[in-house]
């Protein structure tokens, strides 16, 4: 019974919303809005569960692993400070402590971490882009041409720009389109399997 009820809900909702998509009417729109409200309600109910899970796991890490206690403490402190400073609506205005923390702590941290990628990419490009085979040479040549578009090459720049445009809109697009069609067909097949209850992994192992 614990497994059958969710399967029936998925079956009914799946069929109703597939049919709804193709019927443009007020009734159909009402069903759509009502369904979307339910998705939000479910999502909101999942939020406290996520917070509880995060707090519990971080707390247990702090208690059981002395080496990670400091980092767990920083994580819990960050969570508490952002939650407390962001409780009031005024905290969303520019100049509030919440916004200052966001602008001067979170933004630089995320931007810095992402910027470090440039160093890893440089190291990876040096090791990976070697003309070991015909396919590797094609990859190397393509990457070289695409990267060259950022470098001023005088009169050759326009030719290179046109070449980059051709690479992106012909071979790249052919490959991407094939992938997208494959992914689309795969997604339809998976959805049908979920709606019909053949694919049940989302229910967990129990």
């Amino acid at each position: 019974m614990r497994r059958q009820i969710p399967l029936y809900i998925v079956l009914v909702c799946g069929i109703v919303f597939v049919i709804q998509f193709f019927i443009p009417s007020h009734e159909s729109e009402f069903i759509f809005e009502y369904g979307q409200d339910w998705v939000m309600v479910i999502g909101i109910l999942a939020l406290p569960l996520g917070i509880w899970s995060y707090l519990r796991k971080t707390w247990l890490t702090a208690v059981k692993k002395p080496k990670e206690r400091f980092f767990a403490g920083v994580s819990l402190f960050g969570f508490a400070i952002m939650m407390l400073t962001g409780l009031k609506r005024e905290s969303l205005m520019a100049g509030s402590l919440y916004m200052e923390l966001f602008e001067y702590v979170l933004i630089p941290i995320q931007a810095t971490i992402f910027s470090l990628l440039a160093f890893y990419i440089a190291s990876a490009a040096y090791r990976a882009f070697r003309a070991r085979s015909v396919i590797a040479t094609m990859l190397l040549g393509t990457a070289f041409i695409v990267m060259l578009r950022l470098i001023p090459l005088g009169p050759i720049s326009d030719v290179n720009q046109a070449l980059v445009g051709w690479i992106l809109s012909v071979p790249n697009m052919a490959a991407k389109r094939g992938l997208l069609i494959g992914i689309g067909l795969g997604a339809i097949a998976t959805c049908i399997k979920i709606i019909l209850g053949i694919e049940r992994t989302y229910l967990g192992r129990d």
Partner: protein
Amino acid sequence: MKWHEKMLNIDRRWIYLILGVAVIVPAVVSFHVPVNVTPEVRRVYDFIEDLKPGDIFYVGIDYDPASLAELHPMAYAILDQCFRKDIKPVVATLSQFGAGMAEQVLSEVAAEYGKESGIDYCYLGYKPYPAITIMLMGVDFRVPFPQDYYGTPIDSIPMMRYVHNFDDLKGVISLSAGTSSEFWIIYGYGRYFMPLALGVTGVMAADYYPYLQSGQIFGLISGIKGAAEYEALTEYKGEGLKSIPYQTTTHVVILAFIIVSNIGYFASRRSKK
């Protein structure tokens, strides 16, 4: 160790150091790098340029701080163009970290032109579940956003009084570093046929060319180069054009390392024969 073996085995710390120097050089020695404007960027510029004063245009700040360097300059240049032409932007974010950044860029550019919230622009804030939010905006903005970011009910906002759904907008541009751009294509264009353009990070750009050719998006701004192209078109003095020298020097270094690596590889193969 032979010379070609040395070329093949450069310690990664040397690579990091040289790249670090390459990043610093443009900060010390300023130089200009010319920017060629691509047709996909020009189409976005032309679309907004052709709008009439008072037209409503949706700008989605759908990225987080990790992609700020690439996408923030686009947001500045596009909003500057909108305000310069008296186009009224409706701004919202589908990224959980986007709310603060959207408020920052919008209030800064609006202040430059003396534009007022609720009259000249509307900032709706953040809502989770991008796909659902896009679909609900297609029904009525009031469903996902009963109030704007500052807590004002949508019906009390003069600019939004006659704006109900996508039918009342002239177009959409989503500046995105994640899946929300795909949701915009699937639901924004696929369901409501909104004229849609995207601003994406450099690494994402190749994924969106099929949508450009099929006409599902009318324009595409990719990465900091795209932002610089847009700034060149709008003549906006932003971070896009300033960032191009940094990208140029780092790309020169990466290309140099690739060349060194391949010279070493071929020399090593020849010596083995």
